[in-house]
């Protein structure tokens, strides 16, 4: 039941290939690290894996079939900048409500303080807001998480906190994770295997 990119190619402008025949498999309960420099197409690949972009060639398959449309997407993407991923005019509660609410277990796991729920996004720090974005993405139906530099802008303590929570979900619920980062030492401790962007 893997998530698979099969020979995926993409360009924004004709002739300028960002991805060429990129293939990668993520299995349930596995964390695959994807390392690359900025501008190497990491985010583009993340968006394709989560179904936000349609590849110009190749396919993304979940359990051997294309990603489902018109229902909850079991492949969820979390971005580098949480403040750009939430509506600044919604309270945290409403942001989570859009994802049909979050159970208290997930909140506890991610270290979300219930007092944050009545706040506005600009009243939370980047690390706090990133946890909200993860809670929103990690519903029980979610089977794969695409984590695109999710802790790059955070301090070491918050980074460790967030990844420990994700690891727990991987071990307990068999979540599969594609961890995209430029940070070799981070991928070294969280990923089961690390793949170079240039080699996929």
């Amino acid at each position: 039941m893997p998530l698979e990119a099969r020979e995926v190619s993409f360009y924004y402008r004709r002739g300028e290939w960002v991805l060429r025949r990129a293939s990668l498999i993520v299995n349930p309960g596995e964390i695959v690290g994807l390392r690359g420099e900025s501008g190497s197409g990491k985010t583009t690949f993340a968006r394709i894996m989560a179904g936000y972009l349609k590849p110009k060639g190749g396919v993304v398959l979940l359990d051997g079939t294309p990603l489902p449309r018109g229902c909850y997407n079991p492949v969820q993407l979390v971005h580098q900048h949480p403040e750009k991923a939430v509506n600044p005019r919604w309270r945290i509660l409403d942001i989570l409500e859009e994802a049909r609410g979050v159970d208290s277990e997930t909140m506890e796991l991610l270290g979300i303080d219930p007092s944050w729920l009545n706040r506005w996004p600009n009243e939370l720090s980047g690390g706090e807001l990133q946890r909200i974005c993860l809670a929103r993405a990690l519903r029980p139906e979610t089977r794969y998480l695409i984590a695109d530099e999710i802790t790059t802008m955070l301090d070491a303590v918050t980074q460790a906190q967030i990844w420990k929570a994700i690891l727990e979900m991987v071990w307990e619920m068999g979540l599969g994770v594609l961890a995209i980062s430029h940070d070799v030492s981070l991928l070294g401790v969280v990923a089961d295997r690390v793949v170079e962007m240039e080699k996929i």
Partner: protein
Amino acid sequence: MIKGEGGKAGGRLQPPEGRLREVTLDTAFELENKPSEPLNQERGLSLLEVRELSISFVQYSKGLHQRTITPILELDLAISRGEVVAVVGESGSGKSLLAHAILGILPVNARVSGEILYEGQPLTPERLEKLRGLEITFVPQSVQFLNPLMRVGAQVPIRQRKEKREELVRKAFKRYRLPEGTERKFPFQLSGGMARRVLVASATLGGARLIVADEPTPGMDAATTREALWHLRELADEGRAVMLITHDLEQALQFADRVAVFYAGTTLEEARAVDFSGDGSGLRHPYSKALWGALPGNGFRAFTGNQPSPDDLPEGCLYAPRCKMATDECYASRPVRKYLRGGWVRCYHAT
């Protein structure tokens, strides 16, 4: 060293009348919160001294309901000529706001107490007006600080004749690998990484004596990042003072002389960069040790809890609610600064 207690003769401190007090190195180093004392007594007065700075805002939440938030509380920082001081801490620990306070660009409703001294004199709005952009430069975190209606070359703050100015700007932009002709472009014509390089190049090309760089490198590729940080290091070696705000401790340690660890708007510790090594036992504050131990290469140790919210700060030490060593004393009052092994710390239990 206590001021005026230099030589051997008469160097002994006299106990206050009627109370005998044993003078040890530690008590002699205890700071008495006198504004006339330099923050770092070993090195004397620094070029920039921020002392007991607090900043709060009154906000209207619903109708006429007011609440006060205090994003910076009793914060200290000293930066001398010739050094790079890294300011590290979580987002929301007051790093950027401090930079804005130094530059005098706080929102008008900010309530400020404490002191910001430049060359020993308060940085008043009048003085800032003269110094800002020339003697004190700023690399803002957001590229939106560029004026969208001006060509970027014209936004570089140097006072030179036209030809000389253009040559300097071209050279500085070239150093940061900006393509030729960038100086004639408008901000919207640049990518995020290019705009950031323009900001760093602008702040570093003139004769600034204090450079405040707020997260200057995200969005740059690895080579340009190294180049930018090396340039800041070089400028410090030439005798300027550099404040490098960053969330990336590992990267900062490669370029900084000292590290100020911020937490919930205060400075918990000012350490030498070399103190961040090995098992972290050279560090003084439990939070600094936790920060060091949380790095992927140093154990990746997570610990629970969150930074307190600026509208609900604890009475005592701001770190106490998360601290394993916290005692009643820590919850009751905030620790004052204590000198220890060439740095200083705000902790009752620091060893």
